[in-house]
């Protein structure tokens, strides 16, 4: 089976050995869970419960609203203590609405949606309904509602589901562990998804630094001729959807299109497992595997944590911190979010919690660009980071836009490699944000302009009509009716 080259990329220090041999362990139920209403891309969920209410495990406590949204469920049975604002696991450190749940330790399940007896012959819509009800989002970190992506097959003819087991971010081993410990569930989930998508083929791409996962998955896939497990080279950012599809199929997704437009839909392996649970057992997404790692963590682990568990509880479960970490990160070190504090809850997209010491982050004061060209050589998107950054530095956003800054993945490769430690991604994120705002403003302005113009036209038309009427009146007054000009709507020879 042939693999195809992808452009650029880097080989950071992976440091996966810190956690890769630690089997998934369940976190003891914390005293309080804080379940955010907005854990996904799209509209926040609408609250269904109130303080003081008792909820059962798996009960829906907030409902998805609109086409792109996801519900939230109670990870265990207990009482709603309050609905309050808590610090979100986001760089901004802003607060968000969360349901505060005090577990009662009974683990009493709510009645669950009826699972499908034979999902592989079921109606795709029945699968999608269960996935939507289970509140499943992309678990690789993007947290995009999975059901939306399962619709991609309804208008297109898809050739394959690509299951993303690359896990190219350093430190993270949660997908690795899921594939090693539950290959059957992952592959079943993948087959269910492929069926829902109408895709005849499943290709599972796993970076070849995970030999155990490759072996487990290959063994499990042997029974299904339509499922292929394929090692892909270790090359960050292999886990980028477009690049993974290119490596596996040689097809390059055109700019401004989706991988689905070239026949492939990409889902994460942990998402596949969650879909297996939802479709076979009706179970919602109420827990996930989180890699807690970094050298500032005493004993890195892979933890099965209920959604809403405080990050402090996870860190404590790992024996606490060693010294004061230089950085706290949610997700991987290349594309993760900085955490404002440890006092934040786990959300559905939390793939990792990293506490990194200064030696690991290797941060240094930025210097001038020496035009070494490294960033150009390694950008997986074929961009010219140094030039884009130079434009952004002088606030020339259009210049950066022309060079394609909006196509930047923010994969971090350029910043990682820059010998002058220039925070290139920071520049690009800033520019992307500004360009988006500008675009929104422009659209708004355009709309306002059209409205104003329409309004003005209307006024002008009205004024003209009035003037015409007045003139007509005047004319009628001054001249005999016989001399009156025929009006347009009157047949001239009346």
């Amino acid at each position, binding site marked *: 089976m042939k693999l195809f080259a992808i*452009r650029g990329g880097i080989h*950071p*220090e992976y440091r996966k050995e810190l956690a890769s041999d630690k089997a998934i362990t369940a976190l003891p139920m914390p005293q309080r869970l804080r379940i955010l209403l907005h854990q996904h891309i799209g509209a926040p969920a609408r609250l269904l419960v109130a303080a003081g209410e008792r909820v059962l495990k798996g009960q829906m406590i907030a409902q998805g609203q609109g086409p792109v949204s996801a519900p939230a469920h109670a990870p265990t049975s207990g009482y709603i203590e309050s609905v309050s604002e808590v610090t979100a696991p986001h*760089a901004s*450190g802003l607060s968000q609405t969360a349901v505060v749940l005090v577990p009662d330790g009974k683990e009493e399940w709510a009645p669950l949606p009826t699972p499908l007896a034979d999902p592989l012959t079921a109606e795709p819509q029945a699968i999608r309904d269960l996935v939507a009800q289970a509140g499943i989002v992309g678990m690789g970190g993007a947290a995009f509602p999975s059901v939306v992506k399962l619709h991609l097959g309804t208008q297109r003819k898809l050739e394959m589901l690509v299951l993303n087991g690359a896990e190219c971010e*350093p430190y993270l081993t949660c997908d690795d562990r899921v594939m090693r410990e539950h290959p059957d569930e992952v592959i079943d989930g993948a087959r269910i998804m492929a069926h829902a998508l109408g895709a005849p083929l499943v290709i599972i791409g796993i970076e070849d630094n995970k030999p155990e996962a490759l072996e487990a998955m290959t063994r499990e896939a042997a029974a299904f001729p339509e499922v292929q497990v394929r090692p892909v080279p270790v090359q960050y950012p292999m886990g980028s959807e*477009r690049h993974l599809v290119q490596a596996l199929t*040689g097809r*390059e*997704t*055109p*700019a*401004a*299109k989706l991988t689905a*437009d*070239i026949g492939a839909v990409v889902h994460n392996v942990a998402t596949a497992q969650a879909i297996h649970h939802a479709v076979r057992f009706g179970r919602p997404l109420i827990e996930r595997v989180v890699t807690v790692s970094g050298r500032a963590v005493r004993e890195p682990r892979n933890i099965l944590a209920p959604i809403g568990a405080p990050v402090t509880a996870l860190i404590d479960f790992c024996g606490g911190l060693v010294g004061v970490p230089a950085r*706290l*990160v949610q997700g991987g*070190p*290349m*594309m993760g*979010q*900085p*955490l*404002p*504090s*440890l006092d934040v809850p786990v959300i559905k997209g939390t793939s990792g919690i990293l506490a990194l010491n200064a030696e*690991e*982050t*290797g*941060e*240094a*004061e930025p*210097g*001038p660009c*020496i*035009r*070494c*060209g490294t960033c*150009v*050589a390694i*950008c*997986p*998107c*074929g*961009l*010219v980071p*140094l*030039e884009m950054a130079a434009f952004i530095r002088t606030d020339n956003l259009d210049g950066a836009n022309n060079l*394609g800054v909006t196509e930047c993945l*923010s994969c*971090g490769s350029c*910043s990682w*490699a*820059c*010998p*002058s*430690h220039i*925070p290139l991604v*920071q520049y690009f994120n800033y520019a992307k944000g500004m360009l988006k705002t500008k675009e929104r403003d422009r659209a708004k302005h355009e709309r306002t302009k059209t409205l104003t113009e329409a309004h003005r036209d209307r006024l002008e038309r009205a004024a003209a009509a009035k003037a015409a009427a007045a003139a007509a009146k005047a004319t009628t007054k001054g001249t005999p009716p016989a001399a009156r000009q025929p009006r347009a709507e009157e047949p001239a020879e009346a």
Partner: protein
Amino acid sequence: MMIETATTSAPYTHSAASVQKTMTTVILALVPATAFNLYLFGWPAVFLFAVTVGACAAMEGLALLISGRRLMPTLGDGSAVLTGWLLAMTLPPWAPWWTGVLGAVFAILLGKQIFGGLGQNLFNPAMVARVALLVSFPVAMTSWVAPHPLFWTGTPGFLDALAITFGGQIPDGYSAATALGLVKTGLSMGQTVSQSVGQLPDLMDMGLGLRAGSLGETSALLILGGGLFLIWKKVITWHVPAAMLGTLFVAATLGHLANPERFTDGAFQILSGAAFLGAFFIATDYVTSPVSKTGQLIFGFGVGLLTWIIRSFAGYPEGVAFAVLLMNSLTPIIDQYTRPRRFGRTRRGEPLAPQGDK
């Protein structure tokens, strides 16, 4: 526990690369060729080398002080020392001390700091200095000596050397012409190329570096070793050196085939003068050469071709410095036309056709 709110976006891990490491690696790669040539040309070369490198570092410090910037980390990044080092390597080994100091003024102040410091200059500072010196002081800059290794009989001792470097007089009987110079003078006096080449060291000695020439340029072999070390260390890639030496070799070979009495052959061209030094250490300067690999191929090609043209047709026997400066001026344009193909787009920037196959 609250940790300082992170304002920098990811990544939160970083490669070990740094400007200082890059510069140090380049300097390390230059050490064998330099040491050999300092030995070959004796104490005067040692003095000139020390003066030039020291003056460049001093000028950098001065510029930082004048503009009110901190001395560190800029002075510690090694770029000024490297510029001084390269400049020294292109000076005649027994040139007077003030060529080094003046060269430092040209290189660091006029060639680099005026543009805003590291990374901002359009032209290679060492080559700016070299050409400025050559044009202003043609005699001092073209007074070559034959190899006089340290501690050999007939080699100036420490005190004689002080007189040479700081007194400014090369005693009689030491001077010699470079290979390129000899050929050029020969041609102007009606000698054929083969007659001139007959008086020169054979190609073997030229390759080893047992010839007259600039302070650090004579040993193609050691420079090649240093260059390969840089390629191995991933500080440079093969593109510029291969394109430059390849073009120079091919152009010279074609010329030689067409008229062997007028043009020297390819091997002679690449083994003489500053061809190897230029190819591996000067034309590869990050700041002043294109950033993309395609751009670097074009740049190397241009430097090689221009070097041959200048050597063969212009008044100067050596053309590497001029060729590099000329191509430096084209770098921005080359960069603009050799941007990589963006993912999902054609070379011209249109989105790929929907089927997505290239």
